């Protein structure tokens, strides 16, 4: 049981956290032909947009209601109306997802009311699905915004079950914000190998996987279609990945009666054994040969790798579900989680295999990371890693100083196997060569490698 510690500082230094509105905007980007719209000042959009461009190395569709000083005080109805009309005329999307920001929340703009009035006045918007979500950036964090957006999509767009015929192989998957386009592709392969038809809500693998579209499109390049979203009620199961998606899964269950199974993480041997068992059970298909081989390869990688992971001390900072996935996996490989820092409250925090979990920033991480063998966090950890002279393994978002962030895979047997190689190689390449003084020094200065804790 980890102790949850709140940072007592008044000044956040080197933020780990990002805002709710852009978490929601990213979720909306997993919908086909979509345009996320932030109801705020144009900076709210532009900062988020630049961040995503640097991370995914893709064009990012994202618009703003461009609230002026006057509009933010007098109310932003005109801005929302104009924005929707302009977006419809310029980009002809199938979906517009509207995220509030701190500015519009303080004013108290009633978006539900706005949308009703706008719908009544603008028949040209009839063919466009509109979903609004409340995401003030003065509370919660990125993954909260993502989860809230998915819940709102379900509430607004999913047809009630009477209208939908059941499809026996159809399965809904609700991935958390930490699941990359690469992860989704890996999961799709796995589910399909059990003769299931997975539908991901949202599906970034269609929009932000990095591919060359046949033609120019000003909206998202792919993703789940509105039609597919409406019919999610036809599935037999829902699989949610990450504790953050529990709310969305429950909402979908209430609306459609579809039972859900939540996997807190899909990184590591045991976690994937559970997934395979579940899929085999619900599909009636025995685990395919391919995955039996992959499991065996993962076991072998664990055996080869444990020499280099055992006793290593790791400092890790990430959003709760990503923190859970990586800290449990590293712990299972024999590492000690010396520092764990996260952004927002979550039920999964108390199970993190560390003495304490700090709700804080990268300064909190840096202060606790001295003497560790590895820092695991997003690209903004680079300054701390450099100062401390500790290697950095980049996870999450943003990763702007490495290629292929959208294709980093950490789910499945194969994903876990490759992670062992990647992180293990980082340990290997930073191994210290012994010198005549190594053992003299270590006897005097180095504390014991493993703190013996009563679990």
């Amino acid at each position: 049981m980890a102790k949850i510690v709140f940072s007592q500082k008044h000044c956040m230094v080197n933020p780990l956290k990002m805002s709710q509105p852009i978490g929601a905007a990213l979720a909306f980007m997993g919908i086909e032909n979509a345009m996320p719209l932030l109801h705020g000042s144009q900076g709210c959009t532009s900062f988020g947009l630049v961040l995503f461009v640097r991370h995914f190395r893709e064009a990012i569709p994202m618009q703003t209601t461009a609230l002026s000083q006057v509009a933010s005080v007098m109310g932003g109805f005109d801005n929302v109306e104009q924005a929707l009309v302009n977006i419809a005329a310029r980009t002809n999307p199938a979906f517009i997802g509207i995220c509030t920001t701190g500015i519009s929340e303080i004013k108290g703009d009633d978006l539900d009311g706005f949308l009703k009035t706008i719908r009544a006045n603008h028949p040209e918007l009839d063919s466009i699905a509109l979903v609004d979500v409340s995401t003030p950036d003065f509370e919660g964090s990125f993954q909260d915004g993502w989860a809230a957006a998915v819940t709102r999509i379900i509430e607004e767009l999913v047809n009630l079950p009477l209208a939908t015929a059941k499809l026996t192989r159809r399965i809904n998957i609700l991935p958390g914000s930490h699941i990359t386009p690469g992860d989704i592709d890996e999961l799709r392969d796995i589910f399909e190998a059990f003769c299931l038809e997975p539908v991901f809500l949202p599906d970034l693998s269609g929009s932000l996987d990095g591919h060359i579209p046949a033609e120019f499109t000003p909206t998202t390049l792919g993703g789940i279609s509105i039609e597919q979203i409406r019919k999610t009620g036809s599935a037999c199961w829902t699989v949610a990945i990450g504790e953050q998606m529990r709310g969305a899964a429950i909402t979908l269950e209430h609306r459609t009666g579809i039972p859900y199974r939540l996997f807190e993480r899909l990184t590591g041997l045991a976690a994937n054994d559970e997934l395979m068992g579940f899929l085999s059970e619900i599909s009636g298909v025995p685990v395919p040969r391919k995955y039996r081989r992959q499991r065996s390869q993962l076991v072998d990688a664990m055996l080869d790798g444990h020499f280099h992971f055992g006793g290593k001390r790791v400092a890790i900072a990430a959003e709760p579900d990503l923190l859970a996935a990586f800290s449990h996996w590293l712990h299972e490989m024999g590492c000690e989680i010396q520092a764990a820092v996260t952004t927002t409250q979550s039920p999964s925090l108390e199970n993190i295999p560390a003495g304490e979990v700090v709700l804080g920033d990268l300064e909190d991480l840096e202060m606790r990371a001295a003497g560790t063998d590895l820092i695991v966090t997003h690209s903004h950890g680079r300054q701390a890693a450099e100062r401390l002279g500790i290697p950095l393994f980049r996870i999450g978002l943003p990763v702007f100083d490495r290629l292929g962030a959208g294709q980093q895979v950490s789910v499945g047997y194969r994903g876990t196997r490759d992670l062992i190689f990647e992180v293990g190689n980082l340990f290997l390449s930073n191994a210290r060569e012994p010198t005549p003084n190594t053992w003299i020094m270590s006897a005097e200065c180095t504390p014991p490698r493993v703190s013996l804790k009563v679990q």
Partner: protein
Amino acid sequence: MGTLGSKIQQVLNEPGCATNRAKPNLDRKKGSNKLLAPGAAAGGCAFDGAKIALQPITDVAHLIHGPIGCEGHSWDARGSKSSGPLLYRTSFTTNMNEQDIVFGGEKHLYKAIKEIVEKHNPPAVFVYQTCVPAMIGDDIEAVCKAAQKNFGKPIVPINVPGFVGSKNLGNKLAGEALLDYVIGTEEPEITTPYDINIIGEYNLSGELWQVKPLLDELGIRILSTISGDAKYHEVAQSHRARAAMMVCSKAMINVARKMEERYGIPFFEGSFYGVADMSDSLRRISQLLVDRGADAELLARAEKVIQREEARAWERIAPFKARLAGKRVLLFTGGVKSWSVVAALQEAGLIVTGTSVKKSTPDDKARIKELVKDDAHMFDDLKPREMYAMLKEARADIMLSGGRTQFVALKAKMPWLDINQERHHAYAGYMGMVALIEEIDKALSNPIWEQVRRPAPWEKPAVQDALHLHIA
């Protein structure tokens, strides 16, 4: 917000701004702050602009008073380089929460300043106002005043809530804050007749260092840049410079003009991009200094350096001319950079087949027109879809633009080069222009283009048929 309101009006009426001068009276009131179209806007807010303008000051702690959306997505993102202090790369924010919204964020802000002073003891703290605290009425000027009194060091309010306008307005408001609180507050230990300020230069990718060695050679001292690789004390002492060069035409015009007004520092508007522009800038810096009392022999020395450097640059560009001659360039960049880069590209034999004049002043436009004659198309606003079509139909061989339109080119499988603020290469001065030509050549001659444009095997009906025949 009374003071901020009048400050904005003042900045919008900036008489030094050519764009502004050319406008009728009514339009001028709207100034650089034309209303942004909801759902069709691009670009940053005023806060973004202020941070761009001031964050290059390297030893200052930059504290953003606002919720996480203002600072959490954008810190440590720009390529402004430092020759020493690194504090500017540390991000500080009050990360306002619900409690602050209900009870006000002033105390929180004060305590945050205190923590920074205790931990880092920087020469100054810059406090940036954002939309949310502005809406709930946090008075950052008052907080900064109290903090300055208690901590005994400059705590500078930068009053730039994002919703007051565009990035450009933010640049100017940031300049106003420097004029009000920083410039002229300290005296330099020594001054020389060769002291200059470089205003509106941010040392992106270290570009200032491509130029500085030449100034050093001429004995010209940069008293302060505003703000690339600057230190707080340098900016505070910058009012003792003899002359100034204003680099990015529209961003900091108010600073240059007011420093002339208040401290009698003459300035000219110049550019470090392009061989001819670089030479012109060296000449004008020297001339201004001589006018203000420097020894006239400086002019001759400058001329010598210019001749040597130009010859060296041409010599290094010459081998590319054969390779680049006739290649067509689409150039999308802001303001003054357009014409100076156009000239440079032409020097290397490239043909500018289109350029943007969206951010250019009438003067800029005239200069571009003169340079490119009728060959080129000047676009006020080219939609990404149209850019894509131009590239896809191969009406250009390469696009030079900012990161926002990068993927328009790449998805059309066309070479692209980053020439905006986020770029990783330095293109200033004589060697910078050689570097730009080298980069264009690298992009154009990369062997991937032949491969990535090949149709996929299943897109080749002839091959498919042949295969079928073979199998049959």
